[in-house]
């Protein structure tokens, strides 16, 4: 997290409203939630399902180790194991044994650390892992503690790092592998603290030059450490012997200047030039900070803080006494404040333990989820069984009631004077006869009334398809419904013989159709055949005293269809 954002976040956390909310939440949690969930969470922590509220951060240097105990984000205790400490590892073991479920994060701040930045060829996401692994093997073939991380800041590049397994480190590995605490390590302190300089001494906005930053700090367990960073990546780190405690502040400042100038000459080989901007952040005793500020250093800006001030500025709380110049706890807390370490160089045993831990927690969560699902499903099935059983009973009772009602109705029906079926049959038959009866004389009279002068009906035929097959010998099987077929009446009208113009004949034919349609609204009137043209293919004969006659008079066919 960049420094400005971290500071804003720290100020936000200290807002009075948020403090009041936190206080209220703490009260509620202590009063209600803790008594209810406390025993459960304690048990889950004991089983290893939940991580302990405590975390340990072990920084291993060449001159000892620092163990910092954190509760949440707050450091509650710190132990320094120096080379002169008797049974240092035993003391650490007993300290860690107080909370064996607490995670232990190990950071190495030893002299021998190897870094290599390499360009990675373009490859698919699946192949990239294999390529990185192969490159790592090539880069550090004899080292067991090694890792590679692609650089997000520099696209296509990756940092390869290894921690040579010296006798000293091997002793620590044996110790760590014998612990029951879940161990995350080894992290590399310079890599993890490379963004600390930017957080403490941000560069002014609008800077166009390339910015290089260097963090100079002292650790009790290792020595005087310089970490150079540019464009969000560590480019080089140097560890030199820690100046003696009784050395005057001016001498320490002089040492810092000398080491810095020495490092800059090396940095130039990595791309640094005089035109670039170099920001220096020094973490040391108050008097050293003052002495450094008085010196003429080859940097664009100088920021000097005591570790105490830096801790407060970064929102990490009090990480050291005001007069102390050691940054061990500050570095540990900075690492602890990260979501995850930049890089972890673990041994197969630690890796396997970590994998088992993850597998156990995941398995437990899945098992718990599956248990809940099983319980839910069983409850659901039980409810369904109860529901179907109850519904069956209710439906059975209702069915019995309906059957009793049916029997009662049947009794009433059987007691009728004439059976319901007989009455219905007679009624339907009478209805059918009534509905299909009609007066042919009335229909024919209506048609005759619409005929024009000289017109006559030559022939007509009426058929009711509904009654076709009603009579005659009994037929087996179901009868086909004929409701869709309605009665039709076809007839042929003869026009006056004197009428020979086809257009006049046709007009009269249509006029007759219109008159019939008006007179017989219950019928659909259609012309099925119009008179043909009489002037072609026919003999026309006559005289001045006789009307013109043709071989046969023109006829028109009509069809009346009963409307549904």
């Amino acid at each position, binding site marked *: 997290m960049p420094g400005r954002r971290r500071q804003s976040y720290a100020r936000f956390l200290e807002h009075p409203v948020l403090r009041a909310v936190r206080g209220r939440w703490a009260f509620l949690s202590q009063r209600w939630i803790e008594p209810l969930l406390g025993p459960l969470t304690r048990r889950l922590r004991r089983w290893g399902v939940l991580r302990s509220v405590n975390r340990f951060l072990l920084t291993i240097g060449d001159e000892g180790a620092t163990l910092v105990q954190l509760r949440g984000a707050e450091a509650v205790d710190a132990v320094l194991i120096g080379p002169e400490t008797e049974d240092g590892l035993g003391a650490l073991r007993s300290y860690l044994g107080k909370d064996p479920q607490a995670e232990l994060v190990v950071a190495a701040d030893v002299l021998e650390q190897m870094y290599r930045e390499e360009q990675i060829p373009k490859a698919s996401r699946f192949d990239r892992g294999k390529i990185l692994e192969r490159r790592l093997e090539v880069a550090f073939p004899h080292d067991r503690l090694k890792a590679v991380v692609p650089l997000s800041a520099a696209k296509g590049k990756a940092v390869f790092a290894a921690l040579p397994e010296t006798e000293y480190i091997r002793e620590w590995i044996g110790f760590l592998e014998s612990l029951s605490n879940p161990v995350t390590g080894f992290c590399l302190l310079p890599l993890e603290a490379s963004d600390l300089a930017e957080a403490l001494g941000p560069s002014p906005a609008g800077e166009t030059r390339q910015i290089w930053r260097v963090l100079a700090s002292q650790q009790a367990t290792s020595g005087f450490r310089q970490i150079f960073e540019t464009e969000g990546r560590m480019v080089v780190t140097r560890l030199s012997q820690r100046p003696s405690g009784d050395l005057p502040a001016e001498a320490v400042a002089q040492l810092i200047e000398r080491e810095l100038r020495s490092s800059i000459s090396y940095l130039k080989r990595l791309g640094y030039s005089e035109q670039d901007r170099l920001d220096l952040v020094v973490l040391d005793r108050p008097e050293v900070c003052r002495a450094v500020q008085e010196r003429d250093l080859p940097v664009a800006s100088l920021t000097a803080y005591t570790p105490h001030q830096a801790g407060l500025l970064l929102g990490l709380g009090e990480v050291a006494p005001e007069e102390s110049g050691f940054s061990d706890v500050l570095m540990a807390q900075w690492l602890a404040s990260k979501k995850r370490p930049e890089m972890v160089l673990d041994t197969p045993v630690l890796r396997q333990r970590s994998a088992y831990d993850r597998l*156990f927690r995941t398995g437990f969560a899945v098992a718990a989820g599956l248990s809940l699902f*099983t319980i839910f*499903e069983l409850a659901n*099935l039980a409810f369904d069984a109860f529901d179907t059983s109850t519904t*069956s009973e209710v*439906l059975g009772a209702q069915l019995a009631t309906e059957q009793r009602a049916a029997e009662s109705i049947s009794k009433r029906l059987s007691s009728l004077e004439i059976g319901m079926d007989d009455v219905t049959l007679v009624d339907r038959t009478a209805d059918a006869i009534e509905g299909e009866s009609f007066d042919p004389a009335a229909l024919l009279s209506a048609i005759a009334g619409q005929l024009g002068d000289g017109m006559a*009906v030559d022939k007509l035929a009426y*058929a009711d398809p509904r*009654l076709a097959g009603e009579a005659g*010998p009994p037929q087996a099987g179901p009868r086909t419904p004929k409701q869709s077929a309605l009665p039709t009446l076809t007839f042929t009208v003869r026009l006056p013989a004197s009428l020979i113009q086809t257009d006049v004949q046709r007009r009269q034919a249509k006029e007759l159709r219109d008159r019939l349609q008006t007179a017989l609204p219950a019928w659909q009137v259609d012309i099925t055949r119009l008179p043909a043209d009489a002037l072609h293919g026919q003999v026309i004969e006559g005289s001045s005293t006789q009307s013109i006659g043709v071989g046969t008079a023109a006829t028109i066919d009509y069809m009346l269809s009963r409307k549904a």
Partner: protein
Amino acid sequence: MARLDIDLAKLKELPLRLKIVLGVLAIELVILLAGYLILDDAMASRVAEVDRLRAGLSQLRRKNAQLLQDLDHYPALKRRYDEAMARGLGNPLDRAGVVSAARDWSDRHRLTDLRFRLMPDPAKAAGSPHYVVENDQVEFEDGGVFDSDVLDFWNALLAQQPGHYRIAGFSLERSHEVDEPTLNSLRHGTLTPLLKSKIDLVWTGIQPNVQGGP
């Protein structure tokens, strides 16, 4: 088929708590699977039984509602039944009477060449416990001078037994032109038919079935 190789030695090396969790997971999966296989089928049959009861109940309710509705309508139906029977719907077809009357009306309406046909067996259309509907086919063909005579003849036929007859079809066709020889023969009292007619009737009656009347 791929072989499932389980390295028992590696399994034994797993931490105890991990083995317990994996065991619990396996047991839960077995319980779930068995539960689904056994209980799901049992539940499906129970649900099917409920559906069957529900469908039966619904059908019985509809039937009862229909029967109750019929009972409510019974007085009106009975009244119509009485009226239909009073009109003679239950009378049998007097085959000889129909033919005799047709002959009589044919002469009365100056029709010639009367031909008739009554089918030997009636068709049984529908039935009830005590009745059966019978349909007899009756056909008349004749010739005439005037269409009004034919229509009068048909009206007389239909009026003979109202409520029984339905017209399945009829036809009228001019068979002869009104020319001078025809008019002369008419003047001399000779009936020369000018048209042909035909009518097909369906005589419907309600008759007691084999078991007897109500």
